[in-house]
């Protein structure tokens, strides 16, 4: 028994002490955690790490990839055990919660005025919390509809030319009905119902905003009542429900509804462009989401980078991030994942996103204020999860008002339980940047 105890003790120590050294052959070790995304994206990041390590001698970046679907849970688990990397990637809107927990340091001292001007305004807004900038990113996202031109012309509809000429809901309903006449199973729209997690808040909260509702009252971030379950939100969600329950939406279990030609329209993001372009080429249209009444709104935000408060050498960590933000590195990444490049130079150079490019719509949506950042509050994870549940319930035929009321109750109770998320840890962060 004693040997057993000693063994455990030794192992505990081994486990605890193993990662404590930050030096690696005279080089500073910078640990980097990122999500394991699509193969192409993953490979680019790996080559970027290798390139960074070979271009200079002082810093050694070491990459750990974690699966995307469980990424946030894993980071939270590690955070609790104080087992954090230096450089952390995370899904954009989670930044506020990480900051509130005291896990991230502000990047204001590192961001040069030139770089601030260079980065997309959507990114600067999203990474800002209580007047400090906590994130940078090498790309942003685009959300819209993909359609097949040949099918739309068959039913003779107006093709929107930009974010300001989106279809109205009435037009969209007529289009769904029109397309249905030419469809075997009557399912003409793909809303990526096979996705899980963040997709619902990302992909469908713009619908609420376009209708005049939102996920939460943004003036104080204290309550979702009357906003998420208000008349506008209920009407918008009822509209989505009528499409799904009316049999217009393909369950898309194989994620091939669009590529196999089972549907004419798909509600999706920039990441599908390479696949869809390969399948349909010139026949593929990239269109804005429908306008639910108060002007079209779309999503924004993607994976962002931050520096953790447990990082002993934030300066070195920043050098790695600055490297990723170089135009050629941004171009390499966005070339691989098809996302909107984060810097204006990179956009201008991108054949996809420059004026006249097939995805220029996305760049315009982000630059001209059509995109809405997800709520800038540490309560965001609970908002997202409550909205996902509400969406699922509505999708499955539940009563819309009741489903949204439940989500509001969950969100408001969470905010109450957290005393409105007072900024208790923020001073400690600021002190840390000085060492």
């Amino acid at each position, binding site marked *: 028994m004693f040997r057993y105890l000693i063994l455990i003790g030794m192992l505990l120590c081994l*486990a605890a002490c193993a990662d404590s050294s930050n030096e690696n052959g005279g080089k500073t070790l910078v640990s980097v*955690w990122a999500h394991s995304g699509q193969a192409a994206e993953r490979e680019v990041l790996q080559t970027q790490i290798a390139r960074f390590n070979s271009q200079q001698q002082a810093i050694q970046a070491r990459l750990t990839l974690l699966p995307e679907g469980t990424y946030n849970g894993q980071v939270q*688990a590690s955070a609790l055990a104080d087992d954090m990397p230096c450089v952390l990637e995370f899904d954009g809107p989670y930044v506020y919660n990480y900051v509130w927990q005291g896990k991230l340091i502000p990047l204001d001292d590192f961001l040069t005025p030139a770089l601030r001007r260079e980065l997309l305004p959507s990114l600067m807004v999203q990474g800002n919390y209580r007047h400090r900038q906590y994130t940078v990113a090498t790309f942003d996202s685009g959300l819209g509809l993909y359609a097949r031109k040949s099918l739309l012309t068959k039913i003779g509809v107006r093709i929107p030319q930009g974010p300001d000429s989106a279809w109205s809901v009435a037009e969209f309903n007529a289009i769904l009905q029109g397309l249905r006449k030419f469809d075997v199973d009557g399912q003409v729209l793909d809303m*990526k119902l096979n996705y899980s997690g963040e997709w619902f808040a990302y992909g469908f909260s713009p619908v609420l905003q376009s209708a005049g509702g939102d996920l939460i009252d943004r003036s104080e971030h204290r309550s979702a009542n009357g906003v998420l379950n208000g008349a506008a939100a209920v009407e918008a969600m009822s509209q989505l429900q009528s499409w799904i329950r009316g049999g217009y939406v393909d369950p898309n279990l194989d994620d091939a509804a669009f590529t196999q030609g089972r549907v004419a329209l798909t509600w999706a993001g920039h990441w599908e462009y390479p696949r869809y372009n390969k399948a349909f080429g010139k026949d593929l249209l990239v269109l804005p989401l429908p306008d639910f009444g108060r002007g079209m709104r779309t999503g924004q935000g993607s994976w962002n980078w931050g520096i953790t408060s447990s990082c002993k050498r934030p300066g070195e960590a920043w050098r790695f991030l600055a490297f990723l933000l170089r135009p050629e590195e941004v171009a390499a990444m966005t070339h691989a994942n098809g996302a909107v490049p984060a810097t204006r130079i990179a956009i201008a150079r991108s054949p996809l996103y420059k004026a006249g490019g097939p995805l220029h719509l996305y760049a315009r949506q982000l630059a001209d204020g059509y995109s809405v950042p997800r709520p800038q509050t540490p309560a965001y994870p609970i908002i997202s999860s409550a909205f996902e549940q509400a969406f699922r319930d509505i999708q499955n035929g539940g009563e819309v008002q009741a489903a949204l009321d439940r989500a509001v109750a969950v969100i408001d109770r969470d905010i109450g339980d957290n005393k409105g998320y007072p900024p208790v840890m923020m001073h400690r962060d600021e002190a840390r940047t000085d060492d």
Partner: protein
Amino acid sequence: MHRKRLWNFVNYLLLSIAALLFIAPILFMVVGSFKPEAQVLSEMGTLRAVLPSEIKLHNYRDVFVRIPFGRYLWNSVLINGLIVGLGLIVNALAAYALARLQWRGRDTLLVVVLALLIIPFEAIAVPLFYQLSALGWRNDYLVQVFPFVANPLAIYLFYSFFLGLPRELEEAARVDGAGILRTFFAIVIPNAKPVFATVAIVTFLLYWGMYLWPLLMTVDDGVRPLPLAIATFYTLPPVQWGDILAFGVMMVLPVLVIFITFQPWFVRGVATTGLKG
């Protein structure tokens, strides 16, 4: 005689149909793992769902490209081997003390062990995670092993077996002057092979698919076990069902080998643990 033969035939036919229904999902999985992605779903409603038309290995190749399969497999084997191996010793000793030795507190402890059987691991995963995080213990092999070595179910199975073992053997040995230790190691263990096989298989099955705990406790590919790869395949769109099925086949293969090897012992062990309680 004729009727009997006919009855026999019908019996086998019905049994075969039942067995086929039973393994249809497994057949579907194995066959699907050799199909091009587009056919996995589209052929589900046809006989092709369970009958292969051609065998393509690209899903298997994908698995090796997308995850370090060999490394994960080795990690899983090591972790499960340790859980099972250490568990056999620790739980058998405890069960023997509960079943055969005379000491105060025995009955109380027996009730406690049985009560612990009820607690699902998922229910205590968070506090355990807090506890070990406070020690900074995470992200290695042993944090995936130690919490599962002492196991109320295994103790219960051993306990049931030892209760059912004829006392005469042990009493004879002890009349001959053997102490408790000698009796246990020289008489009881050699007679308990079936129950060891049963407990080994049951605990192995229990932990081979363990997901929540390593998800919380590990971040390095170097120590992560196989089930976590399901997250890689399943949560990242587009879901490649063919890859998942191929991965599944490869994940179950080692279990199948172990089960078939130990099956005779296992069945005998089940007989003796299930009977008494």
